[in-house]
């Protein structure tokens, strides 16, 4: 477990600048909270909150698709995997690192959202539930991207991830069957966040979260299987 934690912390440290850029969006929401009358402009605040919230999903795909590539291109991966670290542990560290990186953002957004939306009358418990949906979606999206990045260039890995996440959602939209949305529940979780409103607060559907966690584990195992066959010392350029 220790190597996994060390790799995760190392990943977060390496990604500190993108994380800081993400946190600027949270600052924007905090600024709006300070500058506006929360009670009168509650709908605007919720709109900005939802917008800012889903950005982290794109970042999770970016983190996942580029993590292995960066380490292989710089050849830093050789020093890490020359230690008593299995490839599965290395990938676990990256999955955990991506989740922590997105978790930092969700935590900051949760605090800011509780304050700004709370003042406007939005249930604080629901703000944190939405953050939980986001973290689960990020972990899954990041792991899918990581899986593709074990054998694809980051650009194609990100594209493939978008396709895998988007296709069931599209089928669900076209057929009108909600079940398709749960095949890869990133869309279902993002939709929970985007559909949140003051007028009709949505319930707290736990199923997509649990399903996303289960799929994250499945994709992580699949990534580890694929990655065990990869010649990591071969140039990725």
């Amino acid at each position, binding site marked *: 477990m*220790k*190597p996994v934690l*060390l*790799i995760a912390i*190392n990943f977060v440290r*390496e990604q500190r600048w993108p994380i800081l850029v993400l946190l600027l969006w949270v600052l924007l929401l905090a600024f709006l909270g300070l500058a506006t009358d929360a009670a009168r402009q509650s709908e605007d605040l919720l709109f900005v909150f939802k917008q800012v919230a889903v950005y982290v999903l794109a970042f999770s795909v970016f983190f996942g698709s580029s993590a292995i590539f960066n380490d292989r291109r*710089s*050849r*830093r991966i*050789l*020093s*890490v*995997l*020359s*230690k*008593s*670290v*299995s*490839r599965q*542990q290395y990938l676990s560290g990256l999955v955990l690192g991506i989740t922590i990186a997105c978790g930092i953002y969700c935590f900051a957004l949760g605090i800011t959202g509780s304050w700004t939306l709370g003042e406007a009358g939005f249930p604080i418990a629901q703000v944190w539930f939405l953050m939980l949906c986001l973290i689960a979606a990020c972990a899954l999206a990041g792991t899918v991207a990581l899986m593709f990045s074990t054998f694809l260039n980051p650009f194609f890995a990100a594209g493939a991830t978008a396709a895998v996440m988007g296709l069931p959602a599209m089928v669900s939209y076209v057929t009108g069957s909600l079940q398709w949305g749960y095949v890869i529940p990133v869309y279902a979780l993002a939709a929970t966040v985007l559909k949140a409103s003051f007028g009709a607060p949505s319930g707290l559907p736990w199923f997509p979260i649990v399903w996303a966690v289960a799929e994250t584990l499945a994709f992580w195992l699949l990534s580890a299987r694929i990655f065990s*066959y990869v*010649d*990591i*010392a*071969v140039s990725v350029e």
Partner: protein
Amino acid sequence: MRMDAALEFVDASKQYSGLFGRRRFHALEGFNLRVETGEILGFLGPNGAGKTTAIHLAMGFMRPTSGRGQLLGKPFGDAGTRDRVGFLPENVALYPRRAEQLVRFYGALNGMKAATLGRRTAQVLEMVNLQDDAKRNVSKFSRGMLQRVGLAQALVNDPELLILDEPTSALDPLARVAVRDLLLKARAAGKTIFLSSHLLSEVELVCDRVAVLHRGRLVRLGTTSELLQAGQRIQIVARGIAAANFTDAVARNGDISFSVPAGQQRMALERVWQLNGEVISVNPERHSLEEIFLQVTADTSKPAGAA
């Protein structure tokens, strides 16, 4: 009973291929080598010979296309074994952090406890003469300093087996001597060292055995002294006689120097004395490792292991 080798390649081959299996390239072919426990084995070969590929197979960074191997008694790729191995890659690439933090990070990855890690980190940074730069970020380091941090991270777990890919290529002469001493001390402490290098003088000074790889095949293997001896010839230096008395004798500063087959050594010495000459020295003729390297890499038809 034969002891387990510290590192062993058994008929290992590695083939790289392009997209859809086109443009196949054999980096290593039927490679057999045993690195015995407690020895320093020099691993030589021109660029592209397959040295780094062999090292990467041993470290589990890639899988052999065919054949197998073992590292400290476990098959290549076994992560648990690597906490007894120290590895320095050819091009050291490290995360941008303070040298001390970095060495601690790599030590912790090997499962070292915090209490011993602090002490050991200070120790290895001193061994590579970086104690005064321990708090500096490695992104500001020169290539030679980076190589020394790389060496420190390889040594931090006090490994039984050190696999070093060009450990002194970026170092100045002083640092090279320090690394050489370090390797000799490690051997004295019973460690095994697998040393890939282009610096033949370095290999000649520290290695017990030398393996030469060319175009993915082992073309020469033997003890350093065996390889350096030019076979059966003896070099004789004498004084007080004319060079014309011996075939191919060279006169220099009043002495003459010539070589004879080992079987004719006694006869040659008696002839020197008959001519009232004085024998200054009698030594087995030696080649430099560079000469051997050039010879074996020029002649690729020699079978593996033919020392």
